[in-house]
């Protein structure tokens, strides 16, 4: 028992010594390189608009390019978009002559008793029979031709044939309206010999004739025959009524299909002083808009022989249905790829012309076989819309003066420069003009200024430059496919003085003179998509003197203080191979733009060492150190650096192999075990 107690006591003593373990902790100071970067002069200077060029020796030039404008010269090629308005009144509507024939047999004239007295095929003397026909009404039905018709011209003609073997005398015939018995015409013939015709007519102008007519044979006397004649009951008196040369003001009739208008016309297009012979259409359409007051369907055929594609000219047939409220019927036609010949009608009198389109307009009335009422004031009304995007046009483009006003062009060359002085040994400003026009040009700058909006300093290109006219030769075309060969012309000036104000804007105003020397033997042309390009090319050889040339750069970043590692100090070790001294200021800001810390405050970065030719011989190492006292999130780093070339009274040339090796290291405090 004693042993067991002792053993138990010993075990309990051992096990009870359990210590509550904690983690040890201690501070360490670490020194670690964070990032390194090799920055050459290109890295410092380059941005999206600034290129760096170097020559064979590595000497660097900055090249800034900006397209000033693609000068819009579409006023040179202005195509009138509506080819006039065409109105066709139906005063020339045709209507065929109307002819109605009535036949009266001898048997009918004799009547039943007469036919007994004068048997058929007998040979007898015919005595005088005065008034054998009196007030005999013969209905005349004209409904096959019209319902009614009011004439402004026309004639009613009557032709009477005496087929009897004896003379007719004192023949009186009237034509009257069957409804109201109004007399339309009256004809009298004193004698109509046997087997002969008589003819008479009256004008119908101002008359209205309805379809139901009556021919009234008021009197016909049969004269005695000269001896016995063969009596034939089928011999007849034939009456022909004819309405001809019809011109009506209003008619309800069945009209035949007919062309009512034909207008062949040349349209002169106002293209200013340009004299265009041909336009190639890239994209285009024509819309034929028509209406008519006809109660029947009409049709307009609109053709433009001047408009051809693959050898076929443009034609269109446009059905114009009856319109109740004057609405137009429109038809669209695609004109892509068509050529417009602007020399006028083919084979025109006096030869080819310019700026002229030849069109054909035909109006038709269709026949529906129904009665329709047509008034002489009924009309077709039509107009044509042309919508053309030319691919090119050929011809003399005329003389014109185009004012180009470029308000202000923002330049980003010195956008990061805050202040300071910059002297450039030279700087070439070149306007690159590319002329795609088949026309000579002259350009004159009325104004060319560089402007620093911060200092409000303006520097002009100067009188010598502004007084010059710069001639731009025309483009040309060659080969079967008319390959376009533009001309390139550079307008140059020395801009070193202008750039010394560190401009951020360029103001220019210029005039472009089109064909200043008049027409030439060469055919002109224009491709509206590409007329005249002007670009600004600024070449700055980096031979410079900088005096406190202060750059500012803002970088949006996201850097957080690590809870586990505390940054105590930042070291920036710069091996400078560029002949600039620099004063460096680096400020850290939070997301509310509050200054968190000034990391480097006017710390000096030493210039590289140069020889007697001011070429870098040796890099200089500078270590900048900064206490790092922030605990917040860094969202913005603003770096302000002032550069001075060394020596600062000489132009220093910058070469591509000049570079800085930058190493950023940090003293970190890390508590191990936390």
């Amino acid at each position, binding site marked *: 028992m004693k042993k067991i107690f002792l053993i138990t006591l010993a075990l309990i003593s051992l096990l009870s010594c359990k*210590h509550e373990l904690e983690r040890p902790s201690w501070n360490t100071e670490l020194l670690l390189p964070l990032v390194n970067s090799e920055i050459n002069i290109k890295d410092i200077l380059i941005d999206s608009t600034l290129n760096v060029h170097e020559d064979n020796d590595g000497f660097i030039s900055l090249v800034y390019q900006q397209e000033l404008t693609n000068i819009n010269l579409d006023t040179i090629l202005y195509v009138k978009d509506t080819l006039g308005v065409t109105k066709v009144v139906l005063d020339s509507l045709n209507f065929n002559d109307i002819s109605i024939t009535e036949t009266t047999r001898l048997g009918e004239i004799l009547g039943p008793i007469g036919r007994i007295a004068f048997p058929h095929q007998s040979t007898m003397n015919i005595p005088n029979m005065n008034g054998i026909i009196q007030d005999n009404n013969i209905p005349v039905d004209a409904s096959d031709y019209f319902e009614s018709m009011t004439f402004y011209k026309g004639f009613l003609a009557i032709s009477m044939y005496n087929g009897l073997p004896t003379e007719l005398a004192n023949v009186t015939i009237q034509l009257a309206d069957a409804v109201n018995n109004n007399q339309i015409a009256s004809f009298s013939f004193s004698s109509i010999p046997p087997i002969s015709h008589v003819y008479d007519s009256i004008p119908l102008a101002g008359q209205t004739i309805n379809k139901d007519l009556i021919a009234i044979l008021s009197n016909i006397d049969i004269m005695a025959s000269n001896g016995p004649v063969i009596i034939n009951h089928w011999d007849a008196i034939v009456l022909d009524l004819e309405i001809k040369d019809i011109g009506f003001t209003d008619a309800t009739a069945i009209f035949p299909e007919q062309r009512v208008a034909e207008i062949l016309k040349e349209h002169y297009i106002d293209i200013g002083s340009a004299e265009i012979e041909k336009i190639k259409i890239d994209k285009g359409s024509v819309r034929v808009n028509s209406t008519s007051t006809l109660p029947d369907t009409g049709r307009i055929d609109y053709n433009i022989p001047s408009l051809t594609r693959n050898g076929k000219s443009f034609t269109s047939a446009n059905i114009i249905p009856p319109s109740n409220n004057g609405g137009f019927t429109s038809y669209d036609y695609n004109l892509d790829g068509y050529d417009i010949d602007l020399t006028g009608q083919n084979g025109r009198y006096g030869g080819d012309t310019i700026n002229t389109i030849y069109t054909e307009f035909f109006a038709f009335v269709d026949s529906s076989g129904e009665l329709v009422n047509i008034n002489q004031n009924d009309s077709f009304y039509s107009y044509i819309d042309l919508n053309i995007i030319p691919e090119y046009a050929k011809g003399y483009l005329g003389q014109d003066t185009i004012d180009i006003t470029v308000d202000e062009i923002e330049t980003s060359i010195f956008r990061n420069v805050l202040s300071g002085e910059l002297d450039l040994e030279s700087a070439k400003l070149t306007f690159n003009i590319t002329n795609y026009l088949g026309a000579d040009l002259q350009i004159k700058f009325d104004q060319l200024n560089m402007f620093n909006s911060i200092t409000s300093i303006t520097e002009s290109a100067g009188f010598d430059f502004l007084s010059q006219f710069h001639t731009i030769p025309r483009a040309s075309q060659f080969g079967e496919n008319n390959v376009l060969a533009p001309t390139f012309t550079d307008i140059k000036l020395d801009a070193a003085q202008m750039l010394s104000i560190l401009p951020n804007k360029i103001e220019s105003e210029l005039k472009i003179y089109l064909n200043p020397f008049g027409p030439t033997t060469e055919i002109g042309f224009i491709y509206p998509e590409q007329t005249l390009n002007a670009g600004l090319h600024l070449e700055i050889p980096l031979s410079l003197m900088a005096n406190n040339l202060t750059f500012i750069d803002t970088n949006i970043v996201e850097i957080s203080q690590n809870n586990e590692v505390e940054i105590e100090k930042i070291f920036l070790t710069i091996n400078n191979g560029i002949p600039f001294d620099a004063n460096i200021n680096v400020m850290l800001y939070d997301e509310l733009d509050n200054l968190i810390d000034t990391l480097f405050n006017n710390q000096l970065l030493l210039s590289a060492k140069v020889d007697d030719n001011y070429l870098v011989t040796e890099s200089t190492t500078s270590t900048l150190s900064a206490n790092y006292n922030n605990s917040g999130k860094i969202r913005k780093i603003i770096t302000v650096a002032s550069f001075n070339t060394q020596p600062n009274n000489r132009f220093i040339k910058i070469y591509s192999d000049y570079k800085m090796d930058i190493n950023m290291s940090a003293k970190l405090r890390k508590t191990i075990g936390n």
Partner: protein
Amino acid sequence: MSKKIYFLILTIIPFLAKASDTTLTKNTISWNSKINLESNALTIDFISRMLGGGFISDTQKNNWISKLSENNTLFSEFSNNISYNRISGKNSFSFSVADRNLARIAFTGDLMKVALFGNYNYQGDTLLFDKTNLNLTRFQQVKIGYGREFKIQDKTVKVSTALSYLNGNQHLSFLSEKASFYTAPYGTYNDLEYDITAFATDTANFNYFENNGSGVAFDFELNFQLKEKKYSIYLFDLGYINWKESALKYNTDTTYSFKGFEIDNLLEFNDSLLEKEADQYLEDIYLNAKKDNIKSYIPANFGLKIEAPLNDLYFNKYIFGVNLKWQPYQDNMLLSLEKILQGFYESGYSPYFYLKTYKQYKGALLIPQIAIGGYTQKLSFGLTTQFFKKSTLQLGCQHLESVFKGKDSNALSVYLQMRLKF
């Protein structure tokens, strides 16, 4: 694993059953627990701070560093063992099961400096980390032994052998034969030159008795007596563990100069860039790691001891011995003299000479000890107290000087043994 244990137990049972039939048998069941923490340079203050926690001041760090030598070793073992021994006439049998947790760290003073202070104060200096080694192993050892006495010319010679099965649980090793670290002024760059062989068992299998590897160990002991002196020559725990292939092995030998992450445009610096770059580096490291198996050695003990009675007023007998440890860092060459010497050198263990004496009092047996060498490589004093006579309880300490030195001591050692004889 369990099948292997059952097989071993079943193999043992017939021996036990047979032995129980004889009247000449002596049976012993023992429980041993050992806590041993030794270093040639680190003090208990360091170890207790690392284990017990709390903030470490610069004064403490300077104090620790001042005591470091060029090569420093820290060894610890926490083990529990239960064993059964049976002596049957000239034969003896044994069976034991032990749970052992071994840790050995070898490092240079420079490594400790940079670990405690960081590299800021060592700008322009090259810090050397050669022969840095970390070896943490946990395993269970199942040992079966057999011994027999022989008579040779009236002399009794006893030969004992044992074979152990080692059930490897976890193993973490890190070895850098050659490494250095240079910090340029202002930290513009760091040069790191290193070769590393690292190994870690599958952390997904982190159970106490998980089988992540298997191994064997061999024991041999020769005891004989000349006149009154008993001599013993022994070799214990010469063995290794083969760890499974599921573990990650990382090998690299490189010189690396880090100048910071290379940024094309410094003016657009953003810490996300650093994270991206860092991720890339980590990815590269991961790509260099591969799954592989590895062999690790457990510390083997070689020794010789002489036991002789004393007709002294105070002491009954003494034991003098010398112990060596053999544990190479890695299995990098075939068995040879060079390999043998490598194992002794890399164990970090100096020849351990000791002298024990025995003094029987009425209530207890006192066994004082004086020694020099071992992991501490210093003079040490030990004391074991044994209570009772037949079934005994031993409490002992190999570094009694630590009681006096307190936190400045380089070692901490306690062991407990309970032995039941029947």
